[in-house]
């Protein structure tokens, strides 16, 4: 049971400076990510959901090393991420799939060159071996080897997303960060891509950090789900637990806001949040959700709750669940 996590985020932060003062002094920060801790184990999928500006994409970018945390530490197989970055061996283990299937492929490279790029950068095999590998990868994602000589413009959105997946798989990484991989696709294509991702995971045993605002897709693919709000994880639980027994008032509201696929359920009781997301440049004091929370208490304005275990398989950051309050 005491397995080592593949990736471990320890209280990572990303504060972007805004509006530098005179003489370039940075005096104000947007706290895009503000203390996120998360473990991802081999072979599992962790979903990261939240609304725009909650910091879920920034978190994903830090995991693959595209952005450096301004605080905290990321560990991969027990070693600090920086050590991998220094040796340029990060891409062997951590890869990413992007949201926009159009801008994620270089329009001036052939498909074969795009997919082989990670192999070339890591000096894997000879040119003909690489081409063989490209063919295997194309087949793996449901395309054919003759597609290798074409340019990205000749493919549809769904096919391009398959190409992006093939590129991410080239070095047989242990974790792929999927940043909104289906939200730009048509409904019928989304299902194809989700199935493909799941199949690949079953075959290769890799892990996903699946970032999306579409809760249905996250539910479909994830084993565990973390809900983020204004740069923090406010609830982290097993999928079943989260959907059957959401604890945080924000999670409850989020789930209840998702349109129900049965028109007869239209008049069900729903929690409709009032107001907008506060700006991450100026988050509220205390619990960041208290401005919109339907069950906010007086102390929520002062005390920022910690992410604490609320059951064997869930953690919640809400004063309602902190013992001292519950008592």
């Amino acid at each position, binding site marked *: 049971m005491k397995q080592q996590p593949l990736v471990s985020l320890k209280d990572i932060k990303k504060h972007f400076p805004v509006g530098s003062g005179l003489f370039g002094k940075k005096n104000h920060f947007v706290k895009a990510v503000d203390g996120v801790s998360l473990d991802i184990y081999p072979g599992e999928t962790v979903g990261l959901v939240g*609304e*725009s500006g909650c910091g879920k994409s920034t978190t994903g970018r830090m995991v693959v090393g595209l952005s450096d945390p301004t605080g905290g530490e990321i560990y991969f197989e027990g070693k600090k991420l920086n050590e991998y970055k220094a040796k340029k061996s990060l891409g062997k283990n951590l890869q990413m799939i992007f949201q926009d299937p159009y801008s994620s492929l270089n329009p001036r490279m052939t498909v074969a060159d795009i997919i082989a790029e990670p192999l070339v950068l890591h000096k894997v095999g000879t040119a003909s071996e690489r081409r063989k590998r490209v063919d295997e990868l194309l087949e793996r994602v449901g395309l054919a080897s003759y597609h290798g000589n074409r340019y990205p413009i000749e493919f*549809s*959105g*769904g*096919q391009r997303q398959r190409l992006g997946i093939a590129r991410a798989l080239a070095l047989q990484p242990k974790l792929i960060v999927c940043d909104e991989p289906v939200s730009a696709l*048509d*409904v*019928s*294509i*989304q*299902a*194809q891509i*989700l*199935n493909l991702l*799941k199949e690949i995971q079953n075959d290769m045993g890799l892990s996903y950090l699946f970032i999306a*605002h579409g*809760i*249905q*897709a996250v*539910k*479909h693919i994830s084993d565990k789900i973390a809900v983020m709000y204004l740069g923090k994880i406010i609830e982290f639980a097993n*999928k*079943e637990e989260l*959907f059957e027994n959401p604890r945080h008032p924000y999670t409850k*509201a*989020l*789930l*209840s*806001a*998702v*349109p*129900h*696929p*049965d*028109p*007869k*359920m*239209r008049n069900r009781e*729903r929690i*409709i*949040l*009032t*107001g*907008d*997301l506060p700006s991450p440049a100026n988050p509220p004091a205390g619990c960041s959700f208290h401005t919109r929370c339907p069950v906010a208490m007086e102390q929520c304005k002062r005390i920022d709750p910690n992410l604490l275990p609320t059951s064997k398989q869930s953690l919640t950051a809400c004063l309602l669940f902190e013992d001292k309050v519950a008592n």
Partner: protein
Amino acid sequence: MSEKEEPLLEVKDLETFIPTSKGEIKPVNGVSFSINKGEIVALVGESGSGKSVSSLSIMGLNASAIQYSKDSSIAFKGKDLLKLKEKEMRKIRGNEVAMIFQDPMFSLNPVHPIGRQIAESIVLHKKVKYKEALVTALDLLNKVGIPDAKRRLNDYPHQLSGGMRQRVMIAMALACDPQLIIADEPTTALDVTIQAQILNLLRKLQQESGIAILLITHDLGVVAETADRVLVMYCGKIVEEGTVEDIFENPLHPYTRGLLASVPALYGPSKEKLDTIPGVVPNPLELPKGCNFVTRCSYATEKCSQNAPTLLEHPAGNMVACWNALEEEGGIGHYETAASSIT
């Protein structure tokens, strides 16, 4: 459906062409539907289905490259919008028919405060004094649920969040008491908690003011949540039409079924594998002979690849354009016997 009242909007045989060097594209290929007073009709389809071209046709806002066939007609309260001159169209647009877009940032003027923008559009259409119009604008902002509306009147669009901007757009659409609002993906750019607010608002407007809404979307959840009636489009044609209950409980067209099945379930256990519609939407220049869906349909027969089915009423209540759906349960048989009994 009751035939008592004349529909507010009646689109008949709408057919559009775009000539290209490789041949002619028909973004909308023979579409007929109607919208009754106070009804929310959802037009569902994926990219390339022709749903946006259809809605822009109603507003007369299509690019000039798009041509209409001579049989096309769009009757709004009996008047054919396609035959109106631009000047007459402008009177209807914004007055009786208003439109809400996916990204309100494009439709709001970034250099004017929102109060002024709403008031000016009222002045333009209603010929009232600016001061009165500003009062109306304030009422409207309150009506669409903008908190602290009085202060917000002087805000510029960039100072508002996406959800607030969409509310302002709705307020602007309401400015001249339209009878029909065309909402093109009104919540696609919004977060789910904000989407719920906006959908609620649209339903409230329909129930309280009796405004009809044509809701264009690809999101079936939004449809289930909001619409009274549903039109499903594929490759420029309506393939199924029915009440929202019929469409969601008893979809007849394999495309509708595929769409519904491919959405992961939010409630209950997840399936290991999602049902998918295989393949991709065909290139508009190389549409298959016969039924447009034949390349992706697992029930396709020889007949499907030869003849295109038309939208016919199925005994279950839906209108459907599918040979198989019409044949099973005596659908098309019923139709054919009816025809043969006449002869």
